[in-house]
Structures are given as structure tokens and as C-alpha cells.
């Protein structure tokens, strides 16, 4: 199908984009990569009166790494994040996870910040932000800038706390502290498709190799990315995975039953925690 009629705005600066959102926000959608929005328009699942296309805001097309972590501008494509070696070195989970976002052609256009705002419970990048305890920087004419923690950013399926008049300008992925290993894995029917279950893990160890922190995050297993702390299980990955899977509340759909998803979560979690641990164990 074809998209419904729409009035198009192509601002050249962030200020102009924010001004347009102040004026039209209630009836407008921000268009960045469009790899989720345009299918919805094509299928007429949404019909905003206006599109505010931010693709000319070159000032937001950055992936910056410093001692604290990685900052991803609103116009950085998934493929920019994937290719940025400095970002991989600081926060390996970014590349580990972004490689499973759809197919390379989709990653060439889709943006990481756009994926966060879209808040699809099956998407990888919201889960990465949640596991790392990252933040999103929002800007509006009404309130200036505000920073929202991942835990408060994902409200429900396809719902973030980004308001109608706000532009998400940057995502911040903090660098894990100390000796921390991470891993990402998922199971889908075809590489690049939505995962039936996906898990990201992060394991921190001390000098002797004892686990001081272990966490897992899930996609496709609930309305928002769910982070489960499994530190108490130590290095017993099987019981950690058992504990984590018990916390999840997956649903049945045409691809998999809830029971099967929970089974996948258990298997993938044990493997993922082990891999994350082995990446840093002395």
C-alpha cells in the first residue's frame, strides 16, 4: 500500500526542528531513518498530518566515544554504530547487539535513537540502553533539555516518555565499570527477523574472577525491556538462567508459545552469561 497524504517539513537545524514540534507536535511524527515509521505509513497503521524529516540535521550524525561512554546522535545510523571501532572498544555490547538489528540494508538507514523512541519491545537497542543503564537526551522549546534514564524512558509497547513536542537528540551508553564482559544472542526463524527470544548479558568480576554483578535483559519477552539481576547465583549459570526465566512473563503469538519462549530464555541466558563471564575471567 501507499502512505496517506501528509505535509512535509525538512528543517535544516535542530532549533528549527524543535520549533516545528512546538507548533505541530500533536499532529506530527518525526521522520529519521523511517525503517519502522514508513512501513506503518505504507500499511496505513498511522496517518500523521505532518512529517518532520530530520535527515538534514547533519550536526546529529555522530557517534562519539569518551572516557565515560558512547554518545550517539539522533541521525547516526545503526551501521554507523556498528562500524565505529572506538564505540565497540568502549561498549562492546553496542556492536554485539546492533549486528542483529534487521538486515544490513535496514541498518544503513535506520537510526539507533529512532529505535529507542519507537520503543518496540522486540527491538535490540532499547534493551541495550536498559541493560547499560543509559540515558536519552530530549529537547523541546517548552522545557529546553532534559535527560531521561532508560528505566523511565520505556513506558510500554511502542511507547516512550518522549513527549509530542520533544526531539530525542542523543542517546548515551555508559561504559561498563571494571572488568565487565557482555554478550548478546537471540533466536529468530531467519537471520535478521524479529527474535522469538533475545537476551543481552553483562557480568562483572573482581581480580580473583568472582562474580560481583550479573544482569540479563530480554527482548520479545514483555511490554518493555526487562532487566533481571542474577548476581546472587554467582557463577552457577544454570541456576541464574532458571531464576531469570522465572521472572519473565512472555506471551503466546503465532511464532512461539509462551512456554517455548521461556524455554529459549533459559537456554540463551545460561549460554550468554557464560560467554560474558569468559570474556573477562582471569
Amino acid at each position, binding site marked *: 500500500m501507499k502512505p496517506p*497524504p*501528509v505535509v*512535509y517539513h*525538512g528543517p535544516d537545524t535542530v532549533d528549527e526542528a524543535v520549533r516545528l514540534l512546538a507548533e505541530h507536535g500533536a499532529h506530527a511524527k518525526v521522520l529519521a531513518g*523511517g525503517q519502522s515509521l*514508513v*512501513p506503518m505509513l505504507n500499511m496505513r497503521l498511522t496517518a500523521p498530518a505532518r512529517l518532520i524529516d530530520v535527515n538534514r540535521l547533519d550536526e546529529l550524525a555522530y557517534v562519539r566515544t569518551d572516557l565515560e561512554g558512547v554518545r550517539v546522535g539522533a541521525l547516526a545510523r545503526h*551501521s554507523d554504530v556498528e562500524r565505529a571501532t572506538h564505540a565497540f572498544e568502549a561498549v562492546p555490547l553496542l556492536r554485539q547487539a546492533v549486528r542483529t538489528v534487521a538486515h544490513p*540494508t535496514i541498518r544503513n538507514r535506520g537510526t539507533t535513537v529512532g529505535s529507542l523512541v519507537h520503543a518496540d519491545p522486540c527491538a535490540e537497542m532499547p534493551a541495550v540502553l536498559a541493560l547499560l543503564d543509559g540515558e536519552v537526551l530530549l529537547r523541546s522549546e517548552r522545557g529546553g533539555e532534559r535527560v531521561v534514564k532508560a528505566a523511565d524512558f520505556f513506558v510500554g509497547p511502542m511507547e516512550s516518555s518522549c513527549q509530542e513536542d520533544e526531539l530525542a537528540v542523543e542517546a548515551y551508553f555508559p561504559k561498563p565499570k571494571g572488568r565487565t564482559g557482555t554478550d548478546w544472542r537471540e533466536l529468530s526463524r531467519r537471520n535478521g527477523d524479529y527474535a522469538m527470544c533475545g537476551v543481552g548479558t553483562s557480568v562483572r568480576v573482581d581480580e580473583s574472577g568472582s562474580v560481583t554483578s550479573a544482569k540479563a535483559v530480554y527482548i520479545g519477552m514483555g511490554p518493555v525491556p526487562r532487566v533481571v539481576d542474577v548476581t546472587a547465583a554467582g557463577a552457577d549459570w544454570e541456576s541464574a538462567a532458571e531464576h531469570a526465566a522465572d521472572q519473565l512473563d512472555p506471551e503466546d503469538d503465532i511464532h512461539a508459545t509462551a512456554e517455548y519462549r521461556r524455554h529459549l530464555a533459559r537456554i540463551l541466558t545460561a549460554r550468554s552469561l557464560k560467554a560474558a563471564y569468559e570474556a573477562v575471567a582471569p
Partner: protein
Amino acid sequence: MTEQLHQITVTVNGVARRADAPARRLLADFLRMDLGLTGTHLGCEHGVCGACTVLMDGVPVRACLIFAVSADGHAITTVEGCCDSGGELGPVQQAFQECHGLQCGFCTPGFITTITAYLEENPKPTEEEAREAIGGNLCRCTGYQNIVAAVLRAAEILRERDADQAGAGGAA
């Protein structure tokens, strides 16, 4: 309701083209309807099948998921631009012909553009890498075996041509 038209200028296969189109015109439809370049095919229209893949500034993108107005000022390469300068089959097209990489041919333009860009990034793919490279394109005839063979053959043709050129350069 009369829709506002936007003047859109794109460089397609090296030639500057201009047309007026409404904001909701998808790039794939703009190429087909407004510029008359019907090589780009539309399959699913929601980004799954990959038939409409074109190169935007050299990078593969789904032409059904980009508005023509967003592509204003950019360079586009379609399957029509993947042939040689004399209009002969390009390396990837030749490989598809030799390996019987197309059956009904509907998905072929998306494969040709995707593979053309991929081989620039990775000129010597393994079979497994070739499979991954075409993973985002669907062939409903399920001709994947031959398409994978065509990726590997295209890489070979590119190397042969490079060697020929180096040889000719050395002789001259």
C-alpha cells in the same frame, strides 16, 4: 484535496533528474512513475523483501522506505546503473546470467544492487558470507543456491577484469 508538490532533484545513475512529486511519494515510485525507470521493483512495500533496494550515495537502502523528498540532492544507483558503460551486462548481471541466478526475475534488481555494493566492501566473500550478504532479500522462486553461486562468480569476474586491466596497463 490537492496535495502540495515538492520539486525533487536526484542524480540517478550519474544523470541529474528533476520532477515534482507529493511528499508521500516513495523513492521507488518516484523512480518508476516520475522518472520512468521501471527496473526498480516493489514487492512487499514494508521493507521485508528487498526487491526495491537501490544505492543511495553508494549505500544499499530500501526505496520503499524512503520518501523521494528525503532523497532530494542525493545520488541514486538503480539496477539500470549496474551495467557497464557500453550498456553491456555488468559483472553481477553477467554472473547471474552464467549461474542461472534468476528465475522469474522479479527480485533480481534488488539482488543486483545489494551484491554490487557488497562486493565493493568484501571483494572475496566465502559462501557463508555470500549467504549473509543476501539475507535481506527474498526470492519467492527460492533460487538461492544459484544466487549464492552468482555472488561468488561475480567476485571472480571482478577479479578477472581487474587482472585484465592491470595486464593491459602493463602492456601499454
